[in-house]
């Protein structure tokens, strides 16, 4: 092959190149279709997607039957104030495994998404029960519970909880029905007092723990627990924990 012929084929190649690039690039199939543009995680506004990605790992696929307290619980949703939902998701519960989700606290969600989640919990999981006769979500816990309060708590525990949790919270013997020990300081240090109160009020319907009023398994003369009685029970648990408020885990979410 001579140089001249090589040169000629080179010219043809150049022409081809110009043709392909010449103006029509914008119509090429490789141009990404705006419809398939992926959503940034910060642009995601669908409650279900947000919940599935951020919350279901602990709170369960449908907001229940997870290791953390269920959020898909009509009674809980009926009594929990909106500000609490917003605040807990934003800042987490320090010292517990509930992480802070706000981006500014090294979480993964924007303020808007947290808003969507907080509102979505109530609209999506629908609090069917009016919380009318239930004790309020927040109670009062003195930082130094008195001996009398703890004694009252012990009596209440015996009538309302001991059947499943054992006389002093050590758990009952039967593996299948036993919810295990609840008097372990390590265990209690990973619960906020607020969560303890809430679980006494709502129970864990998904796992068979009765709420503040249900009688199953309890003494026949059991009366629904009042707000003050629940305070007494939380005081007892805090006493078992050895600290009035839960300790901070050294890796707990920031404040």
């Amino acid at each position: 092959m001579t140089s001249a012929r090589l040169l000629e084929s080179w010219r043809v190649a150049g022409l081809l190149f110009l043709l392909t690039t010449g103006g029509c690039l914008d119509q090429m199939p490789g141009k990404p279709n705006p419809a398939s543009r992926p959503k940034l995680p910060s642009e995601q506004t669908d409650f279900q997607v947000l919940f599935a990605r951020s919350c279901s790992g602990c709170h369960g696929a449908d907001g229940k039957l997870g290791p953390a307290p269920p959020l898909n619980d009509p009674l809980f949703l009926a009594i929990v104030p909106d500000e609490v939902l917003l605040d807990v998701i934003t800042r987490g519960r320090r010292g517990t495994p509930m992480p802070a989700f706000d981006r500014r606290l090294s979480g993964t969600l924007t303020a808007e998404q947290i808003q969507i989640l907080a509102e979505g919990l109530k609209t999506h999981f629908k609090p069917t029960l009016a919380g009318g006769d239930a004790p309020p979500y927040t109670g009062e816990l003195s930082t130094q519970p008195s001996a009398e309060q703890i004694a009252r708590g012990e009596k209440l525990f015996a009538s309302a909880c001991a059947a499943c949790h054992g006389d002093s919270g050590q758990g009952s013997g039967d593996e299948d029905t036993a919810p295990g020990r609840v008097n372990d300081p390590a265990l209690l240090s990973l619960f906020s007092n607020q969560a303890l109160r809430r679980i006494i009020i709502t129970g864990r319907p998904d796992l068979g723990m009765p709420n503040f009023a249900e009688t199953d398994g309890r003494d026949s003369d059991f009366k629904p627990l009042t707000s003050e009685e629940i305070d007494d029970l939380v005081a007892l648990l805090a006493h078992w924990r050895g600290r009035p408020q839960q300790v901070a885990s050294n890796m707990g979410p920031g404040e």
Partner: protein
Amino acid sequence: MNARLRQIGTWIDRRLGVRDLLAHTVLHPIPRELESPMGWWYVFGSASLTFLLLQILSGVGLALVYVPSADQAYESLLYLDYEHPLGWFLRALHYYAGSGMVVMVLVHMTQVFLQGGHKYPRELTWCVGVVLLLCVLGMFFSGQILRWDPDAYWGLAVAGSMAGRVPIIGPDVVHVLLGAETIGAAALSRFFALHVFVIPGALLFFLAIHLWLVLRCGVSAPPVPGQIVDRATYDRDYAESLKRGVPFFGDAFWRDALVSALAVIVVVVIAAVLGPKGPTDPPDPTLGGANPRPEWPFLWLFALLSLSPREAETFIILVFPLLVIGVMFAVPFISNRGERAPSRRPVAVLSVILIYTTLGVLTYLGFTAPWSPRMEAWTADPVPVEIVKRSTVPQLVGGSVFQYKNCRNCHALDGVGGRRGPDLTSVGTRLTRDQLIMQVSNGTPGGGLMPAYGKQISPAELSMLVDFLVSLRPEGQPAAGWATPGPSLGAQQAAEPTYAKQLPPPDAS
């Protein structure tokens, strides 16, 4: 005008003195045999060079828009893809020309090897060429990370565990590479620097040496069966053949140019038709369905990792690549004399076939392999309901801790979750309480596989976590260790954090 220009040129050259060098380069003689159709075998090196130029140009273009920060990298790529005029094309071109460069370099190396071009006196040219291959792969690797999507996480995870296994200095290397012990924003900045400064610098430096060596040692003539490379006579014969040689700037140049132009056209068409690669899903580390894959030049290693027993991992990830690189460097020293024609070198031809078949099969398997480290944030996968239902309160809290500490990123429960470590669904039957405490606190001894959580987990969290792990066993199966109470039980109690001492054993079944 022309005279004036020439004057300026002469003035400059009097000081710079490159005219001779250029003339020498362009007109250096090459063996006349290259004018035969055999000459078409010699075009791949310059095609690689053309791709490199294309990469530099498109790379500069991309760097004008790309933001190398963790919170904006992804968005700037979306901006290029969807908003900036022809930004998508630039990205596609950069990706496919990069791929083309890897392909061309490999083809070039294979051609040189098959035709014995690496033999005396061109051993050093070959070795520098191997360095260039490593640079090109390094560019590919660091480039993939700049995309900052789930695939990038994969790359970083591997780079991290690769570096972490280097004896003694491993942790420090990880730190230098990632800018931290874990994958995060710092890593992106580091890899950006690698991709645009460090590796290209090295690449251009070694490329200059490579080209200089090509000029100095000359282009090898096409091999002729029976013509044997002998150190005693080769130089004289070669010099003799160059006396009848032809200048490079002639057929050879136009051939190179033609093939390069064709290669560019092919890449442009592919880029225009297939469009930019990724970014795939957003860089949301909690994505449930993320199925990260490394880029194609590394898929074979990925497949090898996922198909091999875990014990072989350190070998594959650290020793094996070093071995491969070592062998490549050794090639011209193992055989630098004798026949050059492939028809007389069956072993060489067979090894090439073998290597490419293996790489091909492994690459194919790499597309489906399950090896997947996920590195950050809370996994979206729920704890299996069956486990939750039979859990005690401490175990429930332990389950939350398990999710909170991201154990799930590496460990599956009931088959769902990361695959980096073993599935833990029945770990309670395998390990005792104290063994579990050891495992979580110390991680894998020597680092690299499982991080040590000792300093990142409070005693309370550890205690609950271990309660949870002990409970992970199929119904009716005893916990490890409990069936045979003996000396180990005493040790167990001793390993127990003190506050739990007064309590009955967690789960005395």
